[in-house]
C-alpha cells in the first residue's frame, strides 16, 4: 500500500509540474519572452511523441517476442528524417503558407478544398487513432497494476477505481486547458509543446536509467551482457526480410501520416530551419531510446517468471530487484510517453473533428458565418473542446470493450497501417500535379476498406465471424481476409498492408488520370507541388461583387473584432484605400481565406467566403491564372518579361500623352465654338434691329426707342463678354498685375454690396462676423470683384419669395473664411461640379451672363492664394471664399 500511495503522490506531483511548465511557457510566449521556446531543440524533443507508451513499454515486449524486429519502428522515422527531409520541408512550407491545420486539412486543401475529403480523412483518422489512444490508457493502467501486484490492498484499490477513466479525464482536462487556449489552430501551443519536451527528456532519462541498471547493475557490464544476449532466444533471432522491410516502410509512412506527428512536425513548427537540426537530432534520440531495449528484454526473460508480461519488463525488472525509486522513474517515463501522445493526438483529432465535421454542420444550420446569430468564435472553441472529450471518450470505451488484452505492439501496428492509407493521397498531392480529388477519394476508400477487412476486423473482438476469416465470405476462398486473391502463407499484417496500400495507390493513380480536376483543384495542385517556386500567392478568388462589409462581419465572428479590423485596415491600406473596407480583389480574398483557415480549416474557410462571394467559386480569371502558371513554368524568361514590361510602360506613357493632347484639342474646339456662339448671339439682335431701323418704314416712335435700346443693351453685353474673356485669358496666363493694398475686410464687403446695387435690389443682405477687425493685405479690387459677382449671382438666381443673402465672416485655423449663403433652392448636386466651368449656366432662363463669372472668380482667388468653392448642404446656394493667413492680420 505504501508504495502505491507514494506512486500516486509522485504521479500527481509530476502532473502538477507539467501544468506548471505549460503555464509558464504560455505566459512567456504571451509576454514575448519566449525566444527559448522557439529553439530547434524543443522542436526535436516535441517530435518524440512518436515514442508513445507503445515504444516505451512495448518495444521491450516486442524484442522479447520477436527479437530485433522492434528496430524497424525506429528505423522508419529515422530514414524519413535523414533521407526525406526535403519532403518534410515541402510539407512544412505548404503547411505554413496555406495555414494548414491538420492532415485532413492538408489533403482537402490540396484537392480543391473539398469538404467531403476532409470528412473522409477525419473519420479515417478517428477510427485509426482510437485504438491507439486506448492503448495508452491501457499501458498506464497496466503499469499501475504492476506496482500493485506486490501489494494486496493496492490491488484492491486499483480494482475498485477505474484507473483508465481517471487518466482519461485528467488528460482531457489538460488538453482542453492548454490545447484550446487560442482559437487559431495554426498558432503554436507553446505550453503543450513545452510540457511534451519535458516529458521527452523524462522518458529518455528513465529508459536509459533502467538500461544502465540492467547492464551494469544486474548483468555486470557490457561484456557479460553481450554474452547473455548471445545465449538468449533473441540472439538466435532470424531476420524475416519481408516483415523487416514491410515494417520499416510502415513506420516511415505512419511518421508522415499520423495526425499527431503532423501536428508537431508541421502545425507547431516555428521555423523551417528547425528541420535541419531535427534531421540528425531526432534519429539520435530514437537511437538512444532503442539502445537498452534488448538488454532489458534479455534480462527480463531470464529474471521474471514464465508468463510475466514482457510489455512490463521496464517496470517489473527494477521492482523485482527492490529498486522502487528506479521503478518509479520508469513508471514516470511510461506515464510521460502515454500522456504526451494522448494530448497531442487529441488536439490534432479534435481540430479535425471540429473543423471538418462540427463547424460545417453548424454553418449549414445557421446559414453561414455572416448571418449567424452568435459569435462563432465561442462555437469553434466549444466544438474543439467537445471534440477532445469525444476523442478521449472513444479511446476509453474502446479500452473497456476490447478488454485491454491485445499486445501493445499489435494495436500500434494496426493503427499505423490504417493511417498509412493517407500516404498516396498525401505524397501524390505534394509531388504530382495530376492527382485529383476523385483519385484521392477513391484510393482512400479502397485502402481503408481493405485495411478494415483484412486487419482491423479480424484482429479485434471478433469483428468478423470465424467462418469468414477461414473460408472467406460466402465460402469464396480468394476473398479470405488473410489470403486475398489466393496469396497464402503471408504474414497477416504484411498481407493487409501490401494489398491495401497497393490497391489504394493504384486506384488513386488510375482515377486521377481518368478524372479531370476542377479549376480550383488544379490551382491548389500547382500551389502545393510548386510551393518553392512561388510561395505566398494563392489566387483562388476573382473580383466579382463580394461585399467587403459582409466579409468583415463574418470574419469578426470568427477571428474577433480587433484582429479583423486591423487586418482589413491593413489590406485597405495595401490597396491604397482609406478606411476599413478593401476592394474584394482575389489577392485580398485569398489572404482573408488563409486567415480564416487558421481558425476553421481550409475547406470551411473557403465555403464561408464562397457563401458571401456568391457561389462562383472559380472564374475565368482563375483558369487563366492556372494556364499562365503553366506557361510560365514552361518558358519562363525573366529578361523577356522585363523587356515586355518596359514596352508596356512606354506604350502606356505614349497613350497618356496622346489622351492629354486629344483632350486639350477637344477642349480648345469646344471653347472656340462657345465663344463664337456667345459673340454671335448679341450680334444677331444688333444686326436684325439695326436693319429694321435702317429700313424704318412706318415704325412707331415707341418701337423706335425700344429697338434702339435693345441694340444698346446687346452692345453692352457684347463689350462685357469681351472684357470677361480678356480678363479670364489674362488671369489664366498668369499675366495679371496684382495691386496689393491694405484695408479691412469690412470695407471690401461694403464696397462690393454697394457696387452690386444691393440697396436698390429686393435681395436683402445680412452680414455676420468680425469683418471690421480683419486687416487684409491683398488686391482689394480683385477681391471685391469676386464678392460683387457672388452678390450679383444671388440677386439673379435666388428664387426665394423674400430673398436674403447672408455674408458670414469667420476665422478658422489660420484662414479667413467668407461664406455667401442665400435662401433659394440652391444648386443641384450634379451641377455643383460644373458651375466653375467656363460658359456653364445653371438656369435655362436668360439671366444675361455668358457663364464666365464664377470661372473668373475662381481664377482670381487662385491668383490671390485663396480658394473659392461651393458649400453643399446649406439650404440655398452657398459659396465659400477663403484667404490664407499671410494676407490678413488683426486690425490695430
Amino acid at each position, binding site marked *: 500500500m505504501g508504495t502505491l500511495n507514494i506512486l500516486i503522490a509522485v504521479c500527481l506531483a509530476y502532473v502538477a509540474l507539467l501544468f506548471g511548465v505549460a503555464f509558464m511557457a504560455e505566459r512567456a510566449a504571451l509576454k514575448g519572452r519566449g525566444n527559448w521556446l522557439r529553439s530547434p531543440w524543443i522542436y526535436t524533443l516535441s517530435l518524440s511523441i512518436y515514442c508513445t507508451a507503445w515504444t516505451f513499454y512495448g518495444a521491450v515486449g516486442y524484442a522479447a517476442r520477436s527479437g530485433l524486429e522492434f528496430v524497424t519502428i525506429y528505423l522508419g522515422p529515422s530514414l524519413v528524417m535523414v533521407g526525406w527531409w526535403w519532403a518534410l520541408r515541402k510539407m512544412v512550407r505548404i503547411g505554413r503558407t496555406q495555414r494548414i491545420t491538420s492532415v485532413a486539412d492538408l489533403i482537402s486543401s490540396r484537392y480543391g478544398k473539398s469538404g467531403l475529403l476532409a470528412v473522409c480523412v477525419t473519420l479515417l483518422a478517428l477510427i485509426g487513432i482510437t485504438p491507439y489512444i486506448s492503448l495508452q490508457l491501457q499501458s498506464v493502467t497496466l503499469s499501475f497494476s504492476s506496482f500493485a501486484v506486490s501489494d494486496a490492498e493496492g490491488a484492491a484499490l486499483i480494482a475498485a477505481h477505474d484507473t483508465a477513466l481517471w487518466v482519461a479525464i485528467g488528460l482531457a482536462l489538460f488538453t482542453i486547458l492548454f490545447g484550446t487556449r487560442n482559437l487559431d489552430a495554426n498558432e503554436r501551443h507553446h505550453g503543450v509543446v513545452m510540457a511534451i519536451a519535458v516529458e521527452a527528456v523524462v522518458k529518455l532519462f528513465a529508459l536509459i536509467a533502467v538500461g544502465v541498471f540492467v547492464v551494469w547493475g544486474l548483468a555486470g557490464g557490457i561484456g557479460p551482457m553481450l554474452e547473455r544476449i548471445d545465449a538468449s532466444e533473441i540472439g538466435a533471432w532470424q531476420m524475416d526480410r519481408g516483415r523487416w522491410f514491410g515494417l520499416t516502410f510502415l513506420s516511415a509512412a505512419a511518421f508522415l501520416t499520423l495526425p499527431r506527428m503532423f501536428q508537431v512536425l508541421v502545425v507547431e513548427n516555428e521555423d523551417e530551419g528547425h528541420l535541419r537540426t531535427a534531421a540528425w537530432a531526432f534519429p539520435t534520440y530514437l537511437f538512444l531510446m532503442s539502445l537498452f531495449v534488448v538488454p532489458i528484454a534479455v534480462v527480463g526473460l531470464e529474471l521474471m517468471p514464465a508468463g510475466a508480461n514482457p510489455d512490463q519488463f521496464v517496470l517489473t525488472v527494477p521492482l523485482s530487484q527492490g529498486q522502487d525509486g528506479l521503478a518509479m522513474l520508469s513508471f514516470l517515463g511510461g506515464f510521460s510517453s502515454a500522456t504526451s501522445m494522448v494530448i497531442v493526438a487529441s488536439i490534432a483529432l479534435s481540430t479535425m473533428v471540429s473543423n471538418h465535421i462540427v463547424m460545417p454542420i453548424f454553418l449549414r444550420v445557421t446559414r453561414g458565418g455572416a448571418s449567424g446569430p452568435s459569435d462563432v468564435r465561442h462555437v469553434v472553441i466549444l466544438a474543439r473542446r467537445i471534440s477532445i472529450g469525444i476523442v478521449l471518450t472513444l479511446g476509453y470505451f474502446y479500452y473497456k470493450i476490447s478488454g485491454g488484452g491485445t499486445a501493445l505492439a499489435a494495436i500500434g501496428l494496426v493503427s499505423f497501417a490504417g493511417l498509412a492509407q493517407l500516404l498516396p493521397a498525401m505524397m501524390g498531392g505534394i509531388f504530382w500535379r495530376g492527382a485529383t480529388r476523385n483519385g484521392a477519394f477513391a484510393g482512400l476508400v479502397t485502402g481503408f476498406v481493405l485495411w478494415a477487412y483484412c486487419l482491423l476486423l479480424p484482429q479485434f473482438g471478433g469483428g468478423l465471424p470465424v467462418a469468414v476469416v477461414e473460408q472467406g465470405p460466402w465460402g469464396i476462398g480468394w476473398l479470405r481476409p488473410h489470403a486475398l486473391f489466393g496469396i497464402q502463407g503471408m504474414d497477416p499484417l504484411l498481407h493487409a498492408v501490401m494489398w491495401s496500400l497497393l490497391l489504394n495507390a493504384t486506384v488513386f493513380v488510375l482515377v486521377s488520370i481518368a478524372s479531370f480536376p476542377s479549376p480550383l483543384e488544379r490551382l491548389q495542385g500547382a500551389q502545393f507541388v510548386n510551393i518553392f517556386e512561388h510561395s505566398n500567392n494563392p489566387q483562388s478568388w476573382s473580383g466579382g461583387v463580394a461585399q467587403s462589409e459582409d466579409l468583415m462581419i463574418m470574419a469578426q465572428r470568427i477571428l474577433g473584432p480587433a484582429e479583423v479590423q486591423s487586418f482589413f485596415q491593413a489590406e485597405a491600406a495595401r490597396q491604397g484605400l482609406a478606411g476599413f473596407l478593401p476592394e474584394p480583389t482575389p489577392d485580398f480574398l485569398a489572404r482573408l481565406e488563409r486567415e480564416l483557415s487558421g481558425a476553421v480549416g481550409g475547406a470551411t474557410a473557403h465555403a464561408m467566403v464562397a457563401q458571401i462571394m456568391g457561389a462562383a467559386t472559380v472564374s475565368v480569371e482563375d483558369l487563366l491564372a492556372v494556364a499562365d502558371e503553366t506557361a510560365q513554368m514552361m518558358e519562363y524568361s525573366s529578361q523577356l518579361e522585363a523587356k515586355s514590361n518596359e514596352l508596356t510602360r512606354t506604350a502606356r506613357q505614349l497613350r497618356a500623352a496622346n489622351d492629354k493632347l486629344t483632350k486639350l484639342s477637344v477642349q480648345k474646339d469646344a471653347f472656340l465654338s462657345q465663344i463664337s456662339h456667345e459673340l*454671335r448671339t448679341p*450680334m444677331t439682335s444688333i444686326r*436684325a434691329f439695326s*436693319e429694321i431701323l435702317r429700313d424704318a418704314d412706318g415704325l412707331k416712335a415707341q418701337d423706335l426707342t425700344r429697338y434702339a435700346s435693345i441694340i444698346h443693351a446687346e452692345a453692352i453685353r457684347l463689350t462685357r463678354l469681351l472684357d470677361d474673356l480678356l480678363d479670364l485669358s489674362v488671369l489664366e496666363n498668369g499675366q495679371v498685375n496684382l495691386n496689393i493694398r491694405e484695408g479691412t475686410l469690412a470695407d471690401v464687403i461694403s464696397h462690393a454690396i454697394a457696387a452690386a446695387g444691393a440697396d436698390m435690389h429686393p435681395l436683402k443682405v445680412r452680414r455676420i462676423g468680425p469683418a471690421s477687425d480683419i486687416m487684409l493685405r491683398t488686391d482689394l479690387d480683385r477681391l471685391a470683384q469676386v464678392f460683387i459677382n457672388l452678390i450679383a449671382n444671388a440677386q439673379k438666381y435666388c428664387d426665394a419669395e423674400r430673398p436674403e443673402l447672408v455674408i458670414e465672416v469667420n476665422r478658422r485655423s489660420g484662414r479667413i473664411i467668407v461664406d455667401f449663403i442665400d435662401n433659394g433652392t440652391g444648386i443641384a448636386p450634379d451641377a455643383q461640379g460644373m458651375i466653375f466651368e467656363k460658359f456653364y449656366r445653371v438656369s*435655362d432662363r436668360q439671366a444675361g451672363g455668358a457663364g464666365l463669372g464664377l470661372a473668373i472668380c475662381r481664377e482670381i482667388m487662385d491668383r490671390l492664394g485663396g480658394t473659392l468653392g461651393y458649400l453643399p448642404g446649406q439650404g440655398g446656394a452657398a459659396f465659400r471664399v477663403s484667404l490664407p493667413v499671410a494676407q490678413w492680420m488683426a486690425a490695430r
Partner: protein
Amino acid sequence: MARRVLIIEDEPNIIEAISFILTRDGWQVDTHSNGHDAVSVVQARAPDLVILDVMLPGRSGYDILTDLRALPATQDLPVLMLTARGQARDRELAEKAGASRFMTKPFSNADVIEALNALVAE
C-alpha cells in the same frame, strides 16, 4: 389665308426681331422657347414652316429635327435652321438631321424673308 410660321428660339431679343420682320411680311407668327417639348408643340400647332435654333435649353435643335423627320405628319415640313455656331461641321449636322435650309447668325433680314418664301414656294 396667312401662312403660319413657328419660331423655336430662346433669345427673347432675336425672337422679337424675327417676329417683327415676318409679321411685316404678312406671316402669322407663333413662338416657342425651349427644347423639351418642341416636337409636341410643332405637332399640336401644325405650322406651315418652322424656324429652329440649334442651341436650345433642354434639347438640341438637331435632335428635335431628327424626331420631326421620323414622324409622318412632319417629315416634309419646311424647316429653316438657325445657328450661332458657324462652323462647317454644324452645317453638315443640320443637313444630316434633315434641315430644309441652314442659316448662320447673324443674318440679314432680307435673306430670312427670301429663304422663307422660297421654302413655301417649293
